[in-house]
């Protein structure tokens, strides 16, 4: 029943927002997103509901959603970040904008909850649409180009994934004589060795494009750069998780033996992206691009944890997904405020905005510290668990991850200090408004709480993940 609310509130709410006048659209959307957060809290404290309806019986497709430890906090992240993004949006964006944001929330909720592979695919495609329209309608000068790149690359990936989905289903049918798209039932497929890398690759490609992981980030600079800050914050904070989430939700159960077999190659691949993103972030002159490439590096870090195929690495990756969503989402919103105040995104040399805007500087520093993995904040906890997973068998990659953490301190402080500190070299800007502080404070508190008490998340995330990890071990993987 709760699932009906969780999906229904943003979906129905989206159309309600479309129906009201432009003047009250933002308030309406705020209320709806707020109710959605309450619904999630009900979900968190109540019994973990699942929704399992027959959808297309002939093909064994079910409308099956659940909130296991893997999905639970990503659902929460979606609810919280959507609310914050709506708060941070300008009211004059108009009702269509808020319609698409709520629609995006609906689609993301479905994506993180789906445990039927076909349903997963449907939501996978569904999230493309609102982002596409938000990019075309409310972006900067190159917004349409950004939207087109987003759409083409993601459709390209999805196409391969669709082939993979069909292939998996067909193989299952050949094995058992009937159809099923239930991910949990697709775990013991006998895939012919010739087909294995292709099916595996088709999923991996789609996930890598969505995240994005290096070198499939071609759409990222334009989309992150051109989108309005709340949308960048949602895409980087929430949707980017869909990609790495796919590796956990789909690939870990279905392709456990393949993951174990290709482990070294996969680790090398994401380690390259890890270093690449960090080095790129050091050399950017556009403040949004520093964070964009930092995010590329972080996503590789999450993937590194997943591919460690250890309990610690996978729990750490799950944790870091949530933490990264809050930290990078918040950072993009702060950068949005800065961009709005100074009118551009370049940070050549020194700007010294701290003098006139101390509160802005304080929150900026907080989110930058969170993003660089300051001990005591959640990024550190996630990175620790990932490194804990890596030292088990792949200690070289633990070293690379550690090296990148040092570079992260460098590029984040370079960003913060370049904009905020030094002799004031630009006109003073207005400080954060009361309204802005009102949504930054709860976000910052939430980050502190999960940083000090990661157990709140990891203890919930465990059962389903352990199942997955033991599964890898049983199927000949390492643990």
């Amino acid at each position: 029943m709760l699932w009906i609310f969780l999906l229904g509130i943003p979906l129905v709410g989206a159309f309600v927002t479309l129906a009201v006048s432009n003047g009250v659209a933002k308030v309406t959307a705020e209320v709806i997103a707020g109710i959605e957060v309450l619904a999630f809290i009900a979900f968190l404290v109540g019994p973990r509901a699942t929704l399992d309806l027959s959808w297309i019986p002939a093909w064994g497709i079910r409308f099956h959603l659940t909130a296991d430890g893997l999905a639970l906090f990503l659902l929460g992240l979606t609810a919280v970040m959507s609310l914050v993004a709506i708060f941070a949006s300008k009211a004059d964006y108009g009702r269509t904008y808020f319609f698409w944001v709520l629609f995006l929330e609906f689609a993301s909720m479905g994506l993180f909850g789906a445990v039927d592979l076909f349903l997963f695919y449907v939501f996978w495609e569904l999230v493309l649409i609102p982002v596409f329209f938000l990019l075309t309608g409310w972006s900067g000068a190159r917004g349409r180009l950004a939207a087109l790149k987003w759409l083409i690359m993601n459709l390209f990936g999805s196409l391969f994934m669709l082939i993979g989905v069909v292939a998996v289903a067909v193989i299952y049918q050949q094995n058992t004589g009937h159809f099923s798209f239930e991910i949990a039932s697709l775990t013991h497929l006998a895939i012919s060795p010739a087909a294995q890398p292709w099916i595996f690759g088709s999923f991996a490609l789609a996930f890598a494009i969505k995240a994005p992981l290096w070198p499939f980030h071609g759409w990222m600079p334009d989309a992150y750069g051109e989108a309005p800050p709340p949308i960048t914050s949602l895409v980087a904070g929430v949707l980017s998780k869909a990609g790495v989430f796919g590796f956990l939700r789909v690939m870990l159960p279905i392709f456990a033996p393949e993951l174990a077999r290709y482990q070294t190659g996969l680790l090398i691949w994401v380690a390259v992206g890890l270093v690449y993103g960090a080095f790129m972030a050091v050399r950017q002159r556009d403040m949004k691009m520093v964070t964009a490439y930092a995010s590329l590096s972080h996503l590789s870090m999450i993937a590194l944890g997943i591919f460690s195929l250890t309990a610690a690495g996978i729990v750490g990756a799950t944790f870091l997904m949530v933490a990264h969503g809050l930290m990078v989402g918040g950072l993009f919103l702060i950068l949005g405020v800065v961009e709005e105040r100074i009118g551009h995104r370049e940070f050549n040399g020194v700007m010294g905005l701290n003098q006139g805007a101390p509160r802005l500087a304080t929150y900026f520093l907080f989110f930058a510290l969170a993003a660089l993995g300051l001990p005591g904040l959640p990024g550190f906890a996630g990175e620790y668990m990932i490194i804990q997973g890596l030292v088990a068998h792949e200690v070289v990659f633990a070293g690379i991850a550690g090296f990148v953490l040092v570079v992260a301190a460098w590029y984040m402080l370079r960003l913060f200090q370049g904009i905020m500190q030094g002799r004031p070299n630009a006109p003073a800007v207005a400080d954060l408004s009361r309204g802005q502080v009102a949504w930054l404070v709860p976000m910052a508190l939430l980050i502190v709480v999960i940083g000090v008490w990661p157990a709140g998340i990891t203890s919930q995330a465990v059962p389903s993940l352990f199942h997955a990890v033991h599964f890898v071990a049983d199927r000949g993987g390492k643990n």
Partner: protein
Amino acid sequence: MQGLTEILLLPLFGAVTIGAFKSLAPKRYAGIWASVLLVASFVLAVLADVHLAELAAGHRVISGTLFNWATGFGPKIAWNIYLDPLSGIWLLVITGVGALIHIYSNGYMHDDPDRGRFFGYLNFFIFSMLLLVLAGNLLVLLIGWGLVGLASYLLIGFWYQRPSAVQAAKKAFVMNTIGDVAILIGLALLYFRFHTVTYAGLFSTFAHATPNTAYFEWTAVLLFIGAMAKSAQFPLNGWLVDAMEGPTPVSALIHAATMVTAGVYLMARLYPLLRLAPDVAYAIAAIGAFTAIYAASSAFFQQDIKKVLAYSTLSQLGYMFLALGVGAYTAGVFHFMTHAFFKACLFLAAGSVIHALGGEQDLNQMGGLYKKMPWTTASFLAATLAISGIPPFAGFYSKEAILGQVFNSGHGLLWIVGVITAGMTSFYMFRLFLLTFFGAPRNKKLYDHAHEAPAVMTVPVVILGILAVIGGFFGSWLNGWLAPVFRMYPGASHAALEAGPVFGTVITVGLAVLAFFIAYWLYVLKRTAAKAGISTWPGKWMLAAYGVDTGWRNVAILPIQVVGTWFRDRIDQGILAAVVGVANGIWLWAEDLRPVQSGYVRRYGLSIMVGLGVILAYCLTRV
């Protein structure tokens, strides 16, 4: 937990309240509030240590758990709190010296418009440092370790309008991150093998482990790199001298008395691990000795009063590592304690001088100040005698304890380095003292305006000066106090203080006295200027600390920048171009569908949605 939670939370409470109310209350209240909380912490710390002393010698541990940190991937990691005589010493020094420096800062920062922020940061630092030493496992220690790094960053860059302060803060943070990461990987290795990171859990298992395996060597090396970064041992030393950009009380508290000794604390704490990695222990001693002599020689030609003190801190930290490396754990902790007294005194007295001269730090502008600032001069002299190892001042006892034990343990070469460094220390410290307080005033205008600091500053300086005189007499008490700690696990059989050979003491003190006369001859009788010799090649090298910063730039920073630029201008351009290429390919292919193609971007999106709907409808009707 005998008030440990309160000791920990009081300064945090102070930082939070100051942060929340600093714009509401009058400015001076922030400093008073912060100081009151620190004095209260000190009282609680004394009580906690008294309580510890009442326990039976073999059971002097107070420990507890606040709540879980992380669970789910193996045995849980919790917020363990742990007080034993070793952390008890740090607890006293942090809150005691910390309280004096807080009080002093009320005077020093009196005219700063932003001093609410200053005291908020200062209290936050104390909280973080207490978390570091009261941690019951390596992970909580690492959180405190990272947070003191943050406090240090914030306070070095306190005057954020100064480009040099901003650079110095970044450098300190990034270099310390190297150490944080090393500890992180080291503790992950320990957890992987032993499924715990608590001290008690690890050390009781270490007792049965085989020494000298690659595993233990690597783990010990990683944890030592963490200690090196925090305690600025060569080659991770560049940040500490730049850190002098911060306000002087910060230099006294963080970059002399407490934070930079965290590495000493960690290595003393991990003595059971060092037993298993004897080669690493030797490396600690060697790097310590090298840093001692390297930093001492770098201090010779410095022109800035605080930079001389910064190099001397590096050098004295080197002594402490030398002690730990040869197993003289009590001697190392002893030197930490006396160093906290005399170095905090030196920095605060230097702060009074800088305050009196309106912010001037250049030795070439000082001289003759003893007439104007008698209390400051007397305290500075006491601390100088202490650091130079002149009996019966505090530094003499602790330095002798270290050198004696280095000799006894058969490390002849390291001993010679230590003895020579003692002579060098005496020279550059008296050079500093004489150039500042004696001779003719070199800047008449500044001299005429100079005045003794107000009582709120002078009293803490004098108290520390007294401690620099008598601190050495705490040695035998400390020996007994720490004995239970080093008896608890195997690996510290020579931890207790030992007397060295008499001829060693004679040579060391003799060199120190000789160095004093050389300094006196040069800087008082011959009136040599502070800047004499800095354009000669040894002068240039020593002034630049032998180019260690340039080395880092060429070895680490430039390569990353060059590769990053190559990624940005070449590789990423290629990746972006590839996207456009693929898109164009699809475009050409789509030319066949010209009638549908409107060129209007939204249409494409809409058609996808429609297409998806059609597929779904088709599926549903098939049912």
